[in-house]
């Protein structure tokens, strides 16, 4: 596919064939060759063919090929005349990241770091098909699907400020459990409060560098501070909801009267029964994911209190923010000078709303929304802040992570004969994991350098660097 350089940070996929709008990929010169080698550019073009798409089919610098839509893709569709697509959200609905700060500094945990990660390993269910110690009845599960983080609050596993500091306040109000299949409900019964496998993790980190002291202060971050970051989603429930609707929409796609270039792009008009049902079922999975991450963070805080033998006041664990990076949202954006309601799909992309936006909680409204960008387990992660430029260019969106460069098989091959655990421990990073091949598959070299990704979005102005974190101990699924 042809790519035209727009400036140092953006490349255009010119409109051709059935494309309704052009594609725009945010990437630097050093990344573009590897992006071109993948199918991802074609996927950006494929998304541009879908009805109701506004302005452009966008991709963030952590783009890599996904199913139908590329990972790192952002696409907005007119709420009245556009489509909604399960493939544009992804299987792990509301896969996301949360970050908590503490009152502790590196020296407070240094001696206890190994005990902490061992205890987290014992107390946070993780790995393939892991089940937690919360067993739900169907009626209670439906309450989780309706309430999201507030369910955790009602059960003593959250503070009011946790809800404030969660995107959408931890609840999409359109959630309708009646749109969720029995299969999906069954998968959700035993997985609340579990981390999952693959790239999901819980990490004890340290604030290594502050780029923007004023914003960092508002977010409650300071240099040398101990943080807890976790990455998880809606588990089997979200997968099943995506799969159910994908199969159903693929079956009905011919009735819509337009061709899709890839069956995985199966979609429905937003203003149709299928579209509404998917949006409301997706919201259920989103709410389940928020409750899940809230419970996981609560469990982690209990481990800190017990292992360090301190009280909640001394620990001072406060949620900085929780973002989702696989989601479709109903949002208001200005298009050609006019306010329009859009359905913004972010698949492996993070909302990055600017200062003053009404969806940003009061505490952060003067500076903008926190954006959390985790890297691999050996390098660093970033806290960014949303910008006005993101509203203008990317429907208020930015990158979500590093993105893989090696396949799982290639990573395993590369890690053969090496002890990834020891290599990380030599760098002062303790790691614990569950899956047999997780550590090899998830080795740092399997990922792009997140700093390169973050530098692009910073330079392009679609979010701004606030702080860099470095890992100290990592629990992998």
């Amino acid at each position, binding site marked *: 596919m042809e790519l035209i350089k727009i400036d140092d940070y953006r490349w255009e996929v010119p409109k051709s064939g059935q494309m309704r709008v052009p594609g725009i990929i945010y990437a630097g010169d050093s990344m573009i060759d590897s992006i071109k080698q993948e199918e991802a550019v074609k996927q950006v073009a494929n998304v541009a063919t879908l009805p109701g798409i506004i302005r452009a089919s966008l991709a963030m610098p952590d783009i890599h090929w996904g199913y139908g839509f590329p990972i790192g893709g952002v696409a907005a569709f007119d709420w009245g005349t556009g489509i909604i697509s399960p493939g544009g959200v992804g299987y792990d609905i509301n896969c996301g990241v949360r970050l908590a700060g503490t009152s502790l500094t590196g020296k407070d945990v240094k001696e206890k770091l190994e005990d902490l990660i061992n205890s987290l390993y014992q107390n946070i269910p993780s790995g*393939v098909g892991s089940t937690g110690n919360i067993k739900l009845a169907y009626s209670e599960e439906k309450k989780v699907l309706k309430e999201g983080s507030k369910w955790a609050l009602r059960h003593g596993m959250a503070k009011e400020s946790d809800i404030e500091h969660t995107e959408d306040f931890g609840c999409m109000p359109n959630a309708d459990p009646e749109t969720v299949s029995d299969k999906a409900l*069954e998968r959700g019964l035993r997985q609340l409060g579990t981390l999952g496998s693959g790239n999901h993790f819980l990490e004890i980190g340290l604030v290594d560098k502050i780029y923007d002291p004023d914003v960092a202060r508002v977010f409650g971050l300071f240099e040398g501070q101990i943080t807890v970051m976790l990455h998880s989603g809606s588990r089997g429930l979200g997968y099943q909801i995506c799969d159910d609707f994908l199969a159903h929409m693929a079956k009905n796609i011919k009735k819509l009267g337009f061709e899709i270039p*890839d069956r995985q792009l199966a979609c429905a008009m937003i203003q149709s029964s299928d579209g509404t049902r998917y949006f409301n079922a997706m919201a259920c999975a989103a709410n389940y994911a928020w409750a899940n991450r809230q419970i996981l963070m609560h469990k982690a805080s209990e481990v800190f209190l017990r292992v360090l033998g301190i009280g909640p006041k001394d620990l001072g664990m406060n949620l900085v923010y929780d973002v989702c990076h696989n989601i479709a949202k109903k949002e208001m954006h200005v298009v050609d000078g006019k306010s329009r309601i859009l359905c913004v799909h972010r698949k492996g992309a993070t909302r990055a709303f600017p200062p003053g936006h009404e969806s940003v909680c009061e505490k952060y409204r003067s500076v903008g929304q926190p954006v959390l960008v985790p890297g691999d387990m050996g390098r660093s992660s970033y806290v960014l802040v949303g910008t006005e430029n993101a509203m203008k260019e990317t429907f208020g969106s930015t990158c979500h992570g590093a993105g893989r460069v090696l*396949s799982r098989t290639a990573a395993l091959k590369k890690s053969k004969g090496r002890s990834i655990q020891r290599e990380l421990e030599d760098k002062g990073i303790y790691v614990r994991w569950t899956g047999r091949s997780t550590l090899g598959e998830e080795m740092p070299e399997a990922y792009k350098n997140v700093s390169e990704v973050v530098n692009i979005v910073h330079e392009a102005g679609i979010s701004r660097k606030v702080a860099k974190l470095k890992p100290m101990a990592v629990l992998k699924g």
Partner: protein
Amino acid sequence: MKYKTIDHTADLGIEVFGSGLADLFENAACAMFDLLTDAGNLQPLCETSVAVTGEDRPDLMANWLRELLYLWTGKSLLVKSTKIISLSEYTLTAYVYYEPFVAGRHIIKTEIKAVTYHQIMVEPEAKSWKARIIFDV
């Protein structure tokens, strides 16, 4: 096992072969569970039947594997083998032989999260059939 794995950046795929279409569908089921667990270690302790429909052969393949994957993801059952009873371009019924997962006895090698339509293919070759399926792992 009549399949080989294909390497993808973020995921895992298989190419499956069969002497006929029924054989192909049975082999695809075995291949998926071979990726998931140590299939040689499974016993056909229990039996159930499954019926699926599809818009065409690739859709039927995706729906067939989806249904079997749910036996694992939803009910913790591991499929040893399948026997196709009837098969057309749009429908399939089969017996499924499985055993319930027992922690400690069964190893889970890979968590297969979903069967995707990505690059899915079911096609005849000179004297046999071939399919390609990519899994989200």
